[in-house]
């Protein structure tokens, strides 16, 4: 098991290098450091010295991929690509355009992101499974049909609508919760409730429908027939057997996103003014802060790969037939 995880982590290296190459190509080859400097410095007639100074400050004053003035290994290492990627792999993200340390920002913003994302994940999972099980229990009745139609309608509504409607009705019209913002410690609760509620409701449509198909697939299997044949009640069949076996695909599907919860949700956070990583990313995109966007891309890919490894481990955990070697 340990050797498997280690090998998978080693496999992650080429993938992360690929991610870095891709973002590097996106940011630097199409868009040279000179262009970026001009964009950041703003004015149309910036001097060549100002551009050079900006490049030196941000570590962009080297050749892109190959440094032909150096010899040996240095031709590869003394370049923008190597310097920036190597720093990334050591989780040193450098500074954003506003001069703040990105690593520091990530650490302080992780908390608020998790405060929203974790409850959404857990409550959403519970609500969706409950809803899906209810539909399966009443399968091929009008209740089930109504549930499916409701799900399709819920998932046809834009996610932005849930947020805007939630803010308008719950916060503005009925004054139940604050519209947006955040506070530290226990004071955060009223600020967290509305985003969590909205996100959970927005996820019911697709989530419950998907889990329903998983349970329906399980319910057609032989062991269910056997369970019924030995006289178990439908409720018992559903909760003891179908739910347990259906949890395998559900859990393994959910584990992938577990590490990504750190990243928070881009849209929810920026609408509700949560100072998490999601709103950090959105702000960076809107301010065209390439250093921050690149750091977030790297972090996101890294967490995704961790999620894939966790998925494999969870497979072997819930299904003893799967062995990792």
């Amino acid at each position, binding site marked *: 098991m340990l050797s498997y995880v280690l090998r998978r982590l080693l496999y992650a290296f080429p*993938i992360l290098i690929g991610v870095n190459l*891709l973002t590097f190509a996106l940011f630097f080859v199409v868009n040279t450091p000179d262009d970026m400097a001009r964009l950041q410095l703003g004015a149309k007639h910036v001097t060549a010295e100002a551009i050079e100074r900006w490049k030196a400050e941000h570590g962009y004053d080297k050749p892109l991929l190959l440094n032909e003035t150096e010899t040996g290994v240095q031709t590869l290492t003394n370049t923008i690509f190597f310097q920036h990627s190597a720093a990334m792999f050591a989780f040193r993200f450098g500074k954003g355009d506003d001069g703040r340390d990105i690593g520091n920002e990530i650490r302080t913003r992780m908390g608020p992101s998790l405060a929203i994302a974790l409850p959404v994940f857990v409550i959403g999972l519970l609500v969706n499974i409950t809803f899906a099980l209810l539909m399966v229990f009443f399968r091929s009745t009008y209740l089930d049909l109504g549930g499916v139609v409701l799900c399709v309608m819920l998932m046809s509504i*834009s996610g932005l609508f849930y947020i805007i409607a939630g803010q308008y009705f719950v916060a503005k019209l009925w004054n139940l919760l604050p519209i947006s913002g955040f506070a530290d410690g226990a004071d955060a609760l009223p600020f967290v409730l509305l985003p969590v509620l909205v996100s959970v409701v927005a996820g019911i449509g697709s989530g419950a429908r998907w889990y329903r198909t998983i349970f329906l697939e399980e319910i057609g299997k032989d062991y269910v027939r056997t369970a019924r044949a030995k006289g178990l009640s439908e409720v018992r069949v559903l909760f003891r057997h179908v739910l347990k076996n259906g949890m395998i695909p559900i859990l393994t599907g959910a584990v992938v996103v577990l590490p990504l919860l750190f990243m928070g949700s881009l849209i929810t956070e920026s609408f509700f003014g949560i100072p998490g990583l999601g709103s950090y990313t959105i702000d960076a995109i809107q301010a065209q802060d390439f250093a921050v966007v690149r750091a977030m891309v790297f972090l996101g890919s890294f967490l995704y790969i961790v999620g894939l490894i966790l998925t494999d481990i969870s497979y072997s955990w819930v299904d003893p037939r799967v062995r990792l070697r």
Partner: protein
Amino acid sequence: MSVQAVVLWTDALIFLLLAAGAGLVWTIRRKEHLRAPWAAVAQRPMAMAAALVLAVFVAIGLLDSLHYRERLPDSPADAPQYAVEVLSVFDALMGDLRTQKEKTYSAPLAMQLYAKEFVEHDGVTVRDYPRLVHGGAHLADAAARQPDIARRVAVGLAQGLAASLVAFAVLAVWRARRAGVAASAWLADWRAGRLGWPARTLAGMATLLAVLGAVLVQLADAYHVFGTDKVGQDVLYIGLKSIRTGLVIGTLTTLVTLPLAIGLGIAAGYFRGWVDDVIQYVYTVLNSIPGVLLIAAAVLIVQVYIESNPERFDTAAARADIRLLALCVIMGVTSWTGLARLLRGETLKLRTLDYVEAARAFGVTHTRILGRHIFPNVFHLVLIAIVLDFSGLVLAEAVLSYVGVGVDPTMYSWGNMINGARLELAREPVVWWQLGAAFAFMFTLVLAANLFADGVRDAFDPRMERRR
């Protein structure tokens, strides 16, 4: 008045797609085994009703894709000059809806402006809501508004019903003659649902659409049905114009996705070995980058490119169009991985089957095996993916436009509508109509697409057969 036809990039691709679709329909019609699942789709009332709604959207989108520039009236005949504004056939059909602008916000069906201004009443200047320039301008006073609206709705209802009745009568006579029965016998079959296709649902849906359209036309003639936006533009017009943007994103993205997903997915599964390794590596890399971030990064770059090369685009429409196309390409390049993975798995299974082995033993070339034996057998997966992805892409446009990496801000799109109207909810009284219209349009299109996609998936996926 002479015009100059303008073919934007997305226009060309849309009509290419249309031609490809027509070719596909022609192929399917000729082959019995390909026709069978589509016949099953045609049996489903819900899917067919959704298809009808989709058809209306597509028709508007296509009309809106025939672009032209009007000739300036005072330009000489031998050296004509054309207006910078790019119009479409749809604009021409809409008539005054495009040009009838107010000063600023006005509520749906209102005859007064949203904001107070200094107006002259019998020689005295007071602060009041001024009358709209176009909305309800034919009315003498506010008391006449409600009866007028009621009258227009009634006329629209009557017109819509009459039109659908006539259309239905023509259809009945035509179908009855083709079937060689009396029209009354056909009607009896129709009422009992024995025609072999969901004729009752379709007739009902068509009537509903006709009535809705007629009422809208009646009301839009004298009012702003969904009100006006901040600069006084009619919201109904903006909403209708946004249909094209939504459709382009939903379809052209798939056009980019397909060659990548099909080519790479099948190649990885069929050739295995190092080809498989390389392709798997590429899609793991792409997959591991959070989608929104990759799209954001790429869009930022396109934006910088457009800003630094303004001379390449002669009109604002061309610039916005290139950005739309770029968005489609970017979304396509980032979203082919799911389908490719699916096709790879399926091809891995198929390549070990007897008939593929036999073909290889006979020395059939790889290209021929891939084209004749593998591709036709994974095609249903491709089709299901196309219809399932469409609604997700339409919804994604709104979110991306909100983030600021969506379509050009000058382009008509539901995302831009939502983005522009979001902060206006804080006003008193609330400006809700812009948001409402955008969400209503989006909901209709996406719901129709989802219902249709369900029908297609159930018909094509053999595993789904017993699910209902």
